[in-house]
C-alpha cells in the first residue's frame, strides 16, 4: 500500500495529457480532408490563425496525394501493365506524399506546437480518421518517469 501512495505522487507529478480530436470533413465527398474549425480546447494554447493554417496545409497535401490527373493515370496504367510489380521498386505517389506529410507534421511539432505544450499526431497513425492533438500540462516537475 505504501507503494501505491508513491505511485499517486508520481502520477500527480507526471504531465497531464488530454486529447482533442479534429474529425474528418466529408462535405467534399470521400476525399481526405479535416475540419478546419478551431477546437475550443485550444483557445488558450495556440493562435487560431496558426492552427487553421496548419490544417489547411495538411488538407492541401492530402488533396495532392489523392489528385486524379494525368500523372496518376500514367502511374496507374504503368502499374497495371507491369502487373503492379513496379511497386516493388517504386513508391506510389500517395506514399510519397504521405512521407511529405509526416515531415510536415514533425516540423510543425518541433517549431510551433511542442513549445506550446501540444503535440500533433500524424493522421495516418489514426487511420486517417482524426487529427489527434495531445495537450500536455505539467503539474509539477516531472520526476522523469
Amino acid at each position: 500500500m505504501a507503494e501505491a501512495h508513491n505511485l499517486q505522487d508520481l502520477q500527480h507529478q507526471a504531465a497531464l495529457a488530454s486529447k482533442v480530436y479534429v474529425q474528418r470533413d466529408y462535405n467534399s465527398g470521400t476525399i481526405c480532408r479535416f475540419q478546419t474549425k478551431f477546437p475550443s480546447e485550444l483557445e488558450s494554447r495556440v493562435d487560431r490563425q496558426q492552427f487553421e493554417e496548419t490544417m489547411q496545409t495538411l488538407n492541401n497535401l492530402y488533396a495532392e496525394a489523392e489528385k486524379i490527373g494525368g500523372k496518376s493515370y500514367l502511374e496507374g496504367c504503368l502499374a497495371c501493365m507491369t502487373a503492379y510489380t513496379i511497386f516493388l521498386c517504386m513508391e506510389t505517389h500517395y506514399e510519397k506524399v504521405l512521407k511529405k506529410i509526416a515531415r510536415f507534421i514533425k516540423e510543425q511539432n518541433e517549431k510551433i506546437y511542442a513549445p506550446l505544450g501540444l503535440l500533433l499526431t500524424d493522421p495516418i497513425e489514426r487511420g486517417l480518421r482524426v487529427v489527434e492533438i495531445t495537450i500536455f500540462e505539467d503539474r509539477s516537475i516531472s520526476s522523469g518517469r
Partner: protein
Amino acid sequence: MLQLGVAEPMRECEYSQISTRSSTPMETPYKKRTPKKRKWQAFPGRNKFYCNGRIMMARQTGVFYLTLVLILITSGLFFTFDCPFLSVQLTPAIPVIGGVLFVFVLGTLFRTSFSDPGVLPRATPDEAADLERQIDVANGSSSGYRPPPRTKEVVINGQTVKLKYCFTCKIFRPPRASHCSLCDNCVERFDHHCPWVGNCVGKRNYRFFYMFILSLSFLTIFIFAFVITHVILRSHRQGFLNALKDTPASVLEVVVCFFSVWSIVGLSGFHTYLISSNQTTNEDIKGSWSSKRGKDNYNPYSHGNIFTNCCAALCGPLPPSLIDRRGFVQSDTPQPTPPTNGITMYGSTQSQSHMAAATPLMQSEPVILTDEASLPGRTSLGGPCSGALPLGGQPTPPTSTPNLSCDNGMLPTRNDHSEAHHHFLTPEEAPSPPGMLPCGSPLGHSHTIQGFYNPASQDSLHEDSVRGLVKLSSV
C-alpha cells in the same frame, strides 16, 4: 485478486507485469521481457494473416481454394491436351495468348484476395470516448440501454448523406464505407464480401477484382471457344465420337466453361455498369442513388461522364493500407491478460460483488479517483501506463491490458459511489453519465483483446459495448 482488482488500479497500470507475470521493476522496459509483436497479431477483426502479415484474407477461405482449383485444372487441361493440337493446326499464338490471360487471371486473383480491401482501423479508446462525449452532448443525457441510433448528416455535392456510427469500430463511418459482418471490419468504399476470392472487395482492391473477373471472362470464353474448335477439327477427321474419345479432357473443360461463362460474364457486365456510374454493389442493391427514390436523387460521387468514372476507378491513385499490418505493436505494457479474465471483467457483472467489497480501500483515497476521474477517456486510464512511454510517443495501444485491470477497479466504484464521485469530477466530466467514460476506454481495450484471443465472442462484445454506453449500475 480482490486487492489487485480494485485496491491498486494504478498499481496495476504501472506494475501490471507484476500481477500477471513475474515481478519486474517499473524501470525495466517491458520490451526486453516480451517479444515484439506485430500489429497483425493483435488485429481485432476476423481476418487471417499469412506470411507474417503480408497476406490478409477473410476467415472462410474454402471457396477461394475452389476457385483456384477450378481455374488451375481447367487451364491445365487446356494447355496439356488442347494446345498441342491447336498450335500445330492453327497457330502457336493460341497457347501464348492463353498463357498471358492465365497469368493475368492468377495475378489479379491473388492481388484481390491477399490485399487489404481498405479496412478502417478501429478507434483508439481515447477517440471513442471523445466521440461518445460529443454524441451525448448532442443528444442530451441518454438514459436507457440503447441510445438512439447515431447518425450524422453531411451534404456532399448537393446530396444529403447519412453517416452512421459503427458500434463495433466506434467510429462514424465515412461515406460509402460499410461494416462487413463476416470480417468484422469497417471497409472503405465497401462493395461486397466475395467468398470466391476469400476477401472483402473495397476501395483498395476493387480494381483488381474487376480486372480479375474481366480477364477470367476472356479466359473462359477463350478456352471455351478453342476447345470447341479443337473438337470440331478433330471430328472432321475422325468423326465426333472418336474425337471425344481422343480428348476426354475437352468435355470437362467445356462443361466448366459453359457454366462459368454465364455467371462470370454477367458479373463483369454488372461491374462495368457499376464502374461507369461510380456506384458500389452495396449502393446499387440498396438503390441509394436510384431515381425511384426521388426526382432529385442522384449519385454525388459520380464524376459526370463514363470515361472519367472508369479512369478514376481503375487508374486512380491507389491509397495505402490504413492498418499497418507489419508494424510492431508499440507496447511498453505487457501481454494482455488471458482471455477468461478479459471476458469476465466486462461480460459479467458478478465480479462487481467482490469489487464492491474492495471499494472501501478506494474510498479512503479519493484523490486517486480525482485524477482518474478528471481525465476520463483520455490517457488517464492509460495515463500511468503511458507515462512509461516517452511523452509525445504513441498513446496506449489497443492491446494494453493493464488498463483493463485499472478500469475494472474503476467501474464498480463509480457505480457504487457515483454520487460521491460527482464531487470529484471536474466540470468537464459532469455532463457525462458516470461510469460511461471509463467504460469507453476499457471496452476499447477489451474489445481488441477479445478480438485477438477469441473472435467468437464478438457478439457478447458487441452487447458489452452497447451496455458500456450506459450506467453499469443497472446491469
